[in-house]
């Protein structure tokens, strides 16, 4: 009974610190401290330093700042303009017209950026005013943008997947490969929705652009070729095993510097702001990971993960039932925590559970990412909603409502992923093992 009492205190401290607004990384550190103090007689300070030093100086983690930096460099280039100009002539004739530039644009930028919100800003900067000018329905413009931007988390490089991989000790490259097909499928589902709505909705009467000839189209999109090349090199080098995730990230940084230089958007100011931005964003995640590393160990001492795994085994839930429980759990959690924090906070407990249930851990990474993506576009704290609010000055409610159909499409995606797990597992199984491992 004593044990239960201690666990209650432990969880209370967790909710108190997180809820009162202590920075997530520090809150995790504090809870972990309480856990070690309550459940063991070990020297807490020494356990903490050993653990956090090992976690913070890990080689796997170096992919994180590099991919962030790559995204920050490209974020400050002319990519936003080029994207709209290059994509619109090709997509204008599809049912749904230029709304598709939102989705395809996000898909392309997602492949060079690991962040959902950065994807949103880059694509939206240009597409929102252009689509408004042509009188596309506002809910459609905003909604698809919020939804498609979450692909930034799914299509590699993905910061959430790096964090997940570090937490559960799985190959980042494999996780990246696993994210590609589900990301593309989700993008197609968004496009299908746009196509259907454009035929059904009476409000969908946009102004048409003049039709271009084939050569004009190619001429307009020639600026996109370097980005496409960069994507092929970064993802291809991982798939073919030439480079580890970290090395691919380094190639990506150098590639984007060259790209920025060739566009003449590379100067000392843009270089240093991108570097300082990457430094801070990466520190933000590093702090959470440091706290989480210590918390995982502390959680182990509490016996909570083992206990819950046993409980799940006793309850005799089927895989599907377990996944449904986790789905609901993560959606609720997503109302209070951002994606990365939800992943690091729960994995110590959830990992034994899914291993117990015989769920593939790479596949589960993609499952978690889709679920966490949903939280990005649901109030009260969806980051994409905040960013869109800043960009469009709409009410939060309006944006959330516009994004709701995308939320439903993602729910469908979750079930599709459960029904056809191969979408996620086929690429990691067929990729060439990389030379350097990890």
């Amino acid at each position, binding site marked *: 009974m004593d044990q239960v009492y201690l666990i209650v205190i432990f969880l209370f401290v967790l909710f108190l610190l997180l809820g009162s607004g202590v920075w997530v990384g520090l809150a995790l550190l504090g809870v972990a401290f309480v856990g070690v103090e309550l459940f063991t007689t070990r020297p807490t300070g020494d356990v903490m330093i050993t653990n956090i030093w090992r976690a913070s100086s*890990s080689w796997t983690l*170096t992919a994180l*700042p590099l991919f962030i930096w790559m995204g920050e460099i490209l974020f400050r280039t002319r990519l936003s303009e080029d994207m709209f100009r290059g994509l619109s002539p090709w997509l204008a004739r599809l049912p749904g017209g230029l709304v598709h530039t939102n989705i395809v644009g996000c898909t392309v930028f997602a492949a060079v950026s690991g962040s959902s919100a950065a994807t949103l800003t880059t694509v939206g900067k240009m597409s929102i005013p252009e689509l408004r000018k042509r009188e596309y329905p506002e809910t459609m413009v905003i909604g698809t943008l919020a939804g498609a931007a979450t692909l930034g988390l799914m299509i590699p490089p993905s910061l959430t997947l790096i964090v997940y991989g570090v937490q559960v000790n799985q190959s980042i490259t494999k996780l990246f490969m696993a994210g590609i097909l589900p990301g593309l499928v989700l993008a197609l589902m968004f496009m299908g929705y746009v196509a259907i709505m454009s035929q059904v909705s009476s409000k969908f009467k946009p102004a048409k652009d003049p039709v271009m000839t084939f050569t004009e189209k190619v001429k307009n999109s020639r600026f996109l070729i370097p980005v496409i090349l960069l994507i092929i090199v970064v993802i291809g080098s991982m798939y073919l095993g030439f480079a580890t995730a970290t090395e691919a990230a380094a190639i990506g940084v150098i590639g984007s510097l060259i790209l920025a230089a060739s566009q003449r958007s590379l100067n000392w100011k843009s270089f240093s702001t991108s570097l300082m931005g990457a430094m801070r964003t990466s*520190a933000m995640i590093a702090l959470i990971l440091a706290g989480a590393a210590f918390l995982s160990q502390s959680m182990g001492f509490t016996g909570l993960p083992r206990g819950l795994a046993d409980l799940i085994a006793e309850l005799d839930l089927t895989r599907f039932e377990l996944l449904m429980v986790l789905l609901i759990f993560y959606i609720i959690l997503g109302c209070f925590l951002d994606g990365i924090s939800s992943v690091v906070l729960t994995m110590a407990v959830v990992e034994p559970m899914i291993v117990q249930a015989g769920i593939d851990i790479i596949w589960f990474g993609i499952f978690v990412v889709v679920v966490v993506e949903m939280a990005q576009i649901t109030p009260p704290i969806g980051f994409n909603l905040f960013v869109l609010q800043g960009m469009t000055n709409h009410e939060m409610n309006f944006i959330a409502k516009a994004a709701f159909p995308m939320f439903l499409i993602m729910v469908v995606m979750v079930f599709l992923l459960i029904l056809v797990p191969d979408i996620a597992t086929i690429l990691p199984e067929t990729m060439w093992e990389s030379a350097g491992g990890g």
Partner: protein
Amino acid sequence: MVAMRVLRRLLDWLYTGCGILAAIFLVAILLLIVLQMSARWTGEIFPGAPEYAGYCMAAASFFAFASALNHGSHIRVSIVLNLLSRRAKRIVDGWCFLIGAALAWYFTYYAFQAIYWSWLFNDISQGQDASPIWIPQMAMGIGAGVFAIALTDNLLHVLFFGDNRIKTDIIEQSHGE
């Protein structure tokens, strides 16, 4: 008040300086990985490169903590904070900085103790680099110390002036997700 102003400027320099140092370590990670890759492709070996990159990673993170704090990059759950009145918000904000500062000082103390022991017993890294482990660990100690100073700085600011010095930047914060 002149002393205060000098102290203020010194502290701000300290945070910015550590931020720049962190950025330099980030560039160092890039260079190390490029070197290691080119070594591998040309059949050479660069022993210890993964370890060095790991040390740079730790240095880049710890030195950046304070700067990230002041720029509002660190994520927190602000639902409750946003619901509170100004007065209550000040109290809760102070509590957050108090907890944060206490934890950061606690961490700094044990970090330096660990560094001292590594130095005393001449602990050598297990990796191929075989470097004395206290040298890279210094970055952890100093970075955590500056982070603790920044948290304390903000705590005092909340106590005496009622607000913190964090420039909240939702756009920058969001780039982590």
